[in-house]
């Protein structure tokens, strides 16, 4: 699919056009799952009879007519921060948001009803960092109600790398491009340093330090007005980041743009390693939709006096106070963020109902498993690494 028919663009609600144009303009930087999805949606809408098309969009168009929106037309390329601000502070914005969600639900249902290939099985693994001050209380009370703890023959920290390698080097499933197979997001550079894990797409917060610091530097030049913010963001969208990325990552254009958008979409991903892992996972689930996703959290440093009040800065600059780990704070952070990874996956149509979730602590001889009933592992004994790898790779085959 190269472009959206002009007649379709002209029929769509005004608020849809800039975002759709933006996606079409950057189609090459979208992942295969996104390209398929846009193609299917546009195709479905283009074939929709006029009466049903009007029925789908008329309420939203009527709402838009009451909103004091900028003069977007079929040529508007994207929404600026200023545009978004105008939309969001409209008194009709909550209704607009709800209507848009309804429309996409209907489009998705229509597309899904025509889809012939069943979606693939998936895996999401979340690993907390070692050295957390764990207590006897339940670690993930809400998740534990839905799953069960599985005994393993040695602490998971000793299994992580070989397990990850087994997942990354499994036999490719039919119909998936390499970039849709295995992703890992990590705070420290553990898996990204393992040669055998190379078939996977790995993003490490630590290894992305140079690009994060450059972005922060430029973001700190924003004056407090929308024109300045739009100009700096435009500049960051165009900036060549090749040389700032780790070897291997810089070659893949889609991953490169994913990193750029991840950092520019906020949610702390430039500042805190665990936020990077969680928000990165949410975006990977939404966009790349890989069959296997591994998330490795870490222990963040304590905030420093003085410089920590300036969050969008490297708090080590000009500060004589040494870095000190914050295991207590990291425990509170990562307990919830792992749940957020689970919630992102369990609510995404490609993952819901067909994903095996594993939650692990490096020092523990057990993992928490939440899985569809069809997934099975040998029972009656502590699992060996080979059992776990076989169970998971069979599920993904």
């Amino acid at each position, binding site marked *: 699919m190269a472009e959206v028919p002009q007649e379709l663009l002209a029929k769509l609600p005004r608020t849809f056009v800039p975002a759709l144009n933006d996606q079409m303009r950057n189609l090459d930087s979208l992942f295969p799952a996104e390209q398929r999805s846009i193609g299917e949606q546009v195709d479905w809408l283009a074939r929709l009879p006029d009466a049903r098309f009007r029925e789908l969009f008329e309420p939203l168009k009527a709402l838009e007519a009451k909103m004091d929106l900028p003069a977007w037309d079929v040529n508007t390329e994207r929404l600026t921060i200023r545009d978004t601000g105008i939309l969001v502070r409209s008194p009709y914005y909550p209704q607009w948001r709800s209507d848009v969600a309804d429309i996409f639900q209907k489009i998705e249902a229509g597309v899904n009803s025509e889809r012939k290939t069943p979606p693939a099985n998936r895996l999401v693994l979340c690993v907390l960092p070692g050295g957390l001050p764990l207590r006897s209380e339940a670690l993930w009370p809400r998740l534990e109600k839905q799953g069960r703890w599985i005994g393993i023959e040695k602490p998971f920290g000793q299994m992580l790398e070989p397990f990850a390698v087994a997942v990354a080097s499994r036999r490719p499933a039919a119909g998936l491009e390499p970039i849709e197979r295995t992703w890992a997001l990590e705070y420290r550079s553990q898996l990204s340093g393992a040669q055998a894990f190379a078939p996977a797409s790995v993003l490490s917060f630590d290894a992305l330090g140079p690009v994060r610091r450059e972005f922060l530097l430029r973001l700190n030049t924003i004056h407090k*007005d929308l024109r300045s913010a739009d100009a700096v963001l435009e500049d960051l969208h165009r900036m060549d980041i090749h040389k700032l990325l780790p070897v291997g990552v810089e070659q893949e254009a889609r991953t490169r743009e994913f990193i750029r958008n991840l950092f520019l979409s906020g949610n702390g991903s430039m500042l805190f390693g665990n936020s990077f892992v969680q928000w990165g996972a949410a975006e990977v689930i939404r966009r790349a939709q890989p069959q296997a996703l591994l998330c490795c959290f870490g222990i963040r440093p304590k905030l420093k006096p003085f410089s920590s009040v300036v969050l969008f800065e490297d708090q080590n600059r000009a500060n004589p106070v040494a870095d000190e780990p914050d295991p207590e704070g990291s425990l509170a952070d990562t307990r919830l963020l792992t749940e957020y990874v689970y919630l992102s996956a369990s609510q995404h149509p490609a993952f819901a109902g067909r994903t095996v979730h594993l939650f692990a602590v490096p020092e523990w001889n057990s993992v928490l498993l939440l899985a569809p009933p069809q997934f099975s592992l040998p029972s009656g004994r502590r699992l060996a690494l080979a059992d776990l790898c076989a169970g998971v790779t069979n599920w993904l085959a």
Partner: protein
Amino acid sequence: MPGSAISRRTLFQLAGSAAASRIAAAEQASGPKPSAKVVLVTLGGMRRQETFSPEGVVNIPHLCNDLLPQALFYPQTWNDGVTSHFNTISSILTGVWQHVDDWGKDPPAHPTLFRYVQDQLGVNAAGTWVVTSNKALTANIGPGANVILSKQLLVEAVERIIKGYSSRHQLDRDMLLEELTTVMQDDYERIGWNVASPSAIMDPQLKQTFMSALANFIHGPEAPTSGDELTCFVAQEVLRRVSPTVLMVNFSDMEVAHSGTYSLYLRGIRKADILVHRLWEFLQTLPDYKDKVTMAIMSEFGRDPDGSSTNGFFNHRSNTAANRCTWMMVLGKAVGKPAVIERPVRQISMAPSLAALLGVSCRQADGGPLDEFKV
């Protein structure tokens, strides 16, 4: 109250037996009518599940145990406007839902409580103050009032050192204080945001007063890892030295939630709990305020629920009860009899209610005064 909200009964049980003696003391307060004062404290986004809920009360012991028993408490206070900082606080201050620029480029589209008080009571600028931590606010939040963007002051001083814009190159206490002094005295207008100056202190003589107070703060036991500590400190100085008729204070340490650090978000809530209590206790030590002041505390909004498409506690954008349904607490002179008012109310009722205590009318407000306020 939605979700796992705490019940009225539980709230009073949590409050303990201290309530009875405090209520009795409050009822005995009578005599000649003093001139009224108003302190409004707004807090950044905090969800019910981390505050007034069975699992959340651990984060707000002062609000729950010390303040609630003597308060009017509205657990269902709705924000029906734009759930951004500038628009929400503008709405609270004007009594009209505001839809203005979120970056504070423009003032609210209707008069604020400060303007009504100035116009109807003949109070000058020194009688109406804003001291705020939130970086999303500008001096436009209170046109005509003194506005101190206290955290912005600290942030700018720190930034100038770490970016090498200053002759001081290391972030220790003395150098930071020197930088703050420079910012306050010399670079004050020059280094501000280009839409408004970082502070609108109209009486230059007050600056010196603040400088000596700031020195005590920087060298005190609370190293400034928290912008809200500084805000509370500056607010206390304003109360002590200027005795304004209306003071609005804003605490926002919990907004670190935008960065996804749950532990720091909780720490921000706990800090706010300590600071509002400290502020209330401080007011009781000031003759100009004791028995004359009404202090209202309210959260601007909640935050988004876990599992929302807006990434849960990180943000406050969703059209959900978790985000829109918040609370407010009223202490002091306006409290006839402490009570939990379970009727849903709107945030835009606050300005008209506080104004009524001062004998002022917010003529353009959409919200009306709350019946429970003892005028």
